């Protein structure tokens, strides 16, 4: 278990408000990722990080920003939440390698509802 904790697990917020989701890992993995899961779309990459202060965009990055000031924490911020950002958000790291055969370990997810 890579020890990935996502917080909060559930959140309801109003349109136009900023929201920050947190991902915390205890395994010192270099790479971290934020995905969203939506019906009919599967898992889509929002942003990822390949080290402290090193981040890059994924395929659905509009409206989102990220920060990684420490190896263990990767924050996802919705600058001004919209209803289209209602989704389940998953954080992932690239390990542990032997258990995932060079795939990812995922957190349990954050269910975000924007009303």
């Amino acid at each position, binding site marked *: 278990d890579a020890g990935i904790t996502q917080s909060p697990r559930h959140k309801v917020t109003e349109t136009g408000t900023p929201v920050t989701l947190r991902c915390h890992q205890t395994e010192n993995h270099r790479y971290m*990722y934020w995905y969203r899961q939506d019906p009919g779309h599967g898992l889509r990459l929002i942003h*990822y990080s390949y080290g402290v202060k090193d981040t890059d965009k994924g395929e659905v990055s509009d409206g989102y920003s990220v920060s990684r000031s420490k190896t263990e924490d990767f924050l996802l911020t919705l600058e001004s939440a919209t209803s289209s950002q209602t989704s389940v958000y998953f954080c992932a790291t690239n390990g542990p390698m032997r258990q995932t055969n060079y795939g990812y370990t995922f957190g349990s997810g954050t269910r975000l509802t924007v009303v």
Partner: protein
Amino acid sequence: DQQVKQNSPSLSVQEGRISILNCDYTNSMFDYFLWYKKYPAEGPTFLISISSIKDKNEDGRFTVFLNKSAKHLSLHIVPSQPGDSAVYFCATKAGGRDDKIIFGKGTRLHILP
């Protein structure tokens, strides 16, 4: 444009029978493929993988077959059990330094009693 396609959104299989989940990909340069399983209210978990140097990989009841010429892979579950009811995602490593994984849209498998 989808690079990993799972064309069946859902599949129902009788308990004890074989479940076959299919996946197609577009880029012949992809060389490593993975299957993830996801239960409701949980994160996806790694199930099985295959490298492009192989055409089959087996782990207990789960077998993945890779047909490189057809750019197609399939996951076989034999025999299917009630606990196999979940969403299954096909995925591939995109390569490069950022270690990204590209996922399909998923197939929801229902195991019928």
